[in-house]
């Protein structure tokens, strides 16, 4: 029992692990006692010595504690992989720290998107609909992370 897991948060734009205090560069990984991830089948918590495991991630909030501070990140869709040697890699299309969420902007955009979604109900707009629904999920995830 190692007591901690090494957490990686990977996005196409690089690591999304918040930087250590006094630094600006995101870190590659962080040692945490546990992490909560929004999985396809619901919120799931990963603790040390978890069985090797892969599952999709849906837009939502990733939570973990580092020392005394607890960190929250809004994440987009992707995957989480738990490896045998106790590493957790969250691969998502995007992530933003709760403190960096622009609440006013996101709220305004969410209203627009929701209104747009209500209008589009026919099948012809399926692609457009999916795009909007994805954006809506992402916006909601950001709002949830921020409060």
């Amino acid at each position: 029992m190692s007591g901690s897991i090494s957490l990686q948060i990977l996005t196409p734009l690089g690591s999304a692990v918040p930087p250590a205090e006094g630094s600006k560069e995101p870190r590659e990984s962080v040692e945490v006692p546990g992490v909560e991830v929004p999985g396809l089948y619901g919120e799931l918590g990963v603790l040390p010595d978890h069985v090797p495991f892969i599952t999709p991630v849906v837009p939502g909030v990733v939570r973990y504690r580092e020392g005394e501070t607890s960190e929250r990140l809004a994440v987009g869709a992707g995957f989480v992989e738990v490896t045998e040697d106790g590493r957790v890699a969250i691969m998502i299309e995007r992530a933003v720290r709760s403190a960096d969420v622009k609440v006013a902007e996101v709220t305004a955009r969410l209203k627009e998107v929701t209104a747009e979604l209500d209008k589009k109900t026919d099948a012809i707009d399926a692609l457009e609909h999916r795009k909007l629904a994805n954006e809506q999920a992402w916006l909601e995830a950001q709002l949830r992370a921020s409060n």
Partner: protein
Amino acid sequence: MANLKEIRKRIKTVKNTRKITSAMSRIAGARLARAQNAAKAARPYGERLAEVVAGLMGSLDDGGSLHPLLEKRDNVKRVGLILMTADRGLCGGFNTKANRAAKKFILEQEKQGREVVIITCGKKGNSFLRHAEFDVFRHHDAPTLETVVSSAKAIATEASTMFTAAEDDAEVQRVDRWVLVYNYFKNALTQEIRTAPVLPFPEPEVGEPALSPVFEPEPKKLLEHLLPVALESLLQQAMFNSIAAELAARRMAMDSATDNASELIDDLTLEFNRERQAAITKELMEIIGGAEALKG
């Protein structure tokens, strides 16, 4: 004397051009460093994802061949081409090489009686193909480092929608194979044109997984989530390469343009001095000649 003035004017013009080219080279150099960093930062994501795909497909007995994005079709009627170029020129052979490779590919496919559907990413490729009178089905502007993700998503969605369309679909043309032509960033000095298969999704080399992890949901369902993401990641990697390659090519082209301008200025200065000296000599001769005439 008119000649002297002309040379002076030309020197000034070339000097101005040199200022611009050397500034462009320096800007490209600075951006290249950023692009390289971004590509480096993106790599872990792509690599982990590829590993997960490989592990997952390795755990499936049939290699997951049942997934629609993996379907290999024997009878290829329509081929899709994604051409990645830049939006702007002045970057040496960057655009031309990609365009030429694309044209060759299209002609080859057409010779085999296949229809080619083209998606361009980057204005230069688009205008080249339109000029050569090929139909461009969809056009996207070249991505920047910030828009790589959304751009890759848009193209991936288009390509996979057309790939998975039913054969007799009246609205969506069914494309049986997708190929990507782009500039691979080998290093700061060399770019390489690559033609890579996109769909059916290239099967990764499957290594023996040390311990098969638990997949949730079951592997086949998981593959449904994973493959579209892996496809996007494939396009993202290509885009990062293309962006870095464009900047590297531009820096090289502008560097050599700056060198050429310097050489030209040297030559012109030499000529200018020679002309000036000739004019002085001529005047001197005239004065001496006049003085001699007065004496005599």
